[in-house]
């Protein structure tokens, strides 16, 4: 089977290091490229200081293009935020929201991106209104379908219907694989134990998640077990994660153009214990997916209270896993150590 699914990295994955100035943009791009993950996705305002309120100088954009060229990478997506709560006490007016999206379309085009990512809470009408401009600029706007939302949720169905009605192929989806959480992530459980959840309650919640018990029942049971504060917080995570099946993507494949390879932890044996990547890759093949899967490491926030995250090692392991699942013969290997 010829491999049409490509590997990439969202530089979000390296946030622990970039936040502290331990990795530069060049480190991030080189590291990803060495792992054979040459699709580069960014959150525009994480990677480029100044965006959107202040703007980004041409020199910074030129540097981006030089690095992309130097490491033979491909710009994939500029993830934008659209802060519609910018004004205290009132929501940004519709026309201003559309104008804001157009600004991000321009920025995406400046960076050579094919896609810009819209957050899931943005109204479909805003994206539909911006679609003709996106078409003009050769950009597709992809709404990120992210837990607790999923492809069967009425909000996402409303988006899908609005996209169809618009007739524009500049509108689509970017599913985040975190919505297919089939087991309670061990790093979540360990964090909840550290902040004081009794072990018997943590064990119960973990098991109840695997048994697919309705979150509201679990919350009540935890309360009856004497759980409070952090224990209820742990139980409430079940409201936001419901193990929706990867095959739910199939119906929408014609509008799925990028994938967030979300993961919370990659073990030494190259397994993500809570997200079923083997099943996911099977479904993507079945659906004829031709885009990138971009690593999105999000375990950092679950372990940083106990240890310094090693984002590069985590991304490396996920890329090894993805390469195997995609049937690649070469094992992704890092050549240049990242300065600690």
């Amino acid at each position, binding site marked *: 089977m010829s491999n049409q699914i490509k590997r990439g990295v969202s530089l979000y994955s390296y946030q622990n290091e970039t*936040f502290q100035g331990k990795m530069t943009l060049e480190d991030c791009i080189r590291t990803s490229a060495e792992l054979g993950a040459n699709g580069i996705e960014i959150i525009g305002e994480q990677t480029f200081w100044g965006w959107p309120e202040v703007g980004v100088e041409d020199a910074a954009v030129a540097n981006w293009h030089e690095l992309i060229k130097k490491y033979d990478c491909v710009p994939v997506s500029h993830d934008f935020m659209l802060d519609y709560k*910018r004004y205290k006490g009132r929501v940004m007016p519709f026309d201003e929201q559309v104008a804001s999206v157009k600004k991000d379309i321009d920025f995406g085009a400046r960076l050579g991106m094919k896609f810009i990512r819209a957050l899931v809470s943005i109204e479909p009408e805003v994206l539909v209104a911006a679609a003709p401009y996106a078409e003009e600029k050769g950009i597709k706007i992809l709404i990120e379908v992210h837990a607790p939302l999923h492809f069967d949720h009425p909000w996402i169905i409303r988006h899908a219907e609005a996209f169809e009605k618009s007739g524009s192929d500049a509108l689509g989806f970017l599913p985040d694989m975190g919505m297919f959480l089939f087991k309670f992530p061990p790093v979540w459980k360990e964090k909840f134990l550290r902040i004081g959840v009794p072990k018997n309650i943590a064990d119960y919640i973990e098991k109840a998640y695997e048994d697919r018990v309705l979150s509201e029942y679990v919350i009540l049971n935890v309360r009856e077990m004497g759980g409070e504060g952090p224990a209820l917080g742990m139980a409430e995570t079940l409201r936001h994660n419901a193990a929706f099946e990867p095959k739910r993507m199939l119906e929408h494949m014609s509008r799925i153009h990028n994938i967030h390879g979300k993961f919370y932890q990659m073990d030494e044996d190259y397994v993500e214990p809570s997200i079923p990547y083997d099943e996911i890759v099977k479904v993507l093949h079945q659906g004829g997916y031709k885009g990138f899967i971009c690593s999105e490491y999000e375990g950092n926030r679950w372990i940083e209270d106990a240890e310094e995250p090693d984002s590069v090692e985590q991304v490396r392991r996920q890329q090894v896993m993805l390469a195997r699942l995609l049937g690649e013969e070469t094992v992704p290997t890092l050549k240049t150590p990242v300065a600690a």
Partner: protein
Amino acid sequence: MMDNKMICTEQFENVVEDGKAVGFSFLGRLPYYRGLGLSMVEDIQVSVDDAKIAREDVRFSVRGKTYTLDEMETVYDDRWNFGEKATIIALKPGGLTPGKHKIEFAVRMRVSYLPFVPTTKDTKELDLAA
């Protein structure tokens, strides 16, 4: 997120004007995976040795511009960038004595897509040079 990286340990010092200490300052980072326009920083709370600094006595300074917290609420053309070390100034006549002080630093953010308004806090013991 980034809780324990909010307070930076370098450049903890008294703020001196006309030869008099009028307060103290430290470097602080936004506990977030991106930056934020200043109008969305709802509150910055600072305590020193368990004594809270009043909101009107807190100043926020980036790239040479200094704002009160009330001013920040309508600043639409400046940002607290990702990982950017802002100077957080607490007005306190006389400043602080040299030596160790417990600093608490909390930031409340208005984030468009979140169904809640997060406050994130860091506490560190910092050493003020004599």
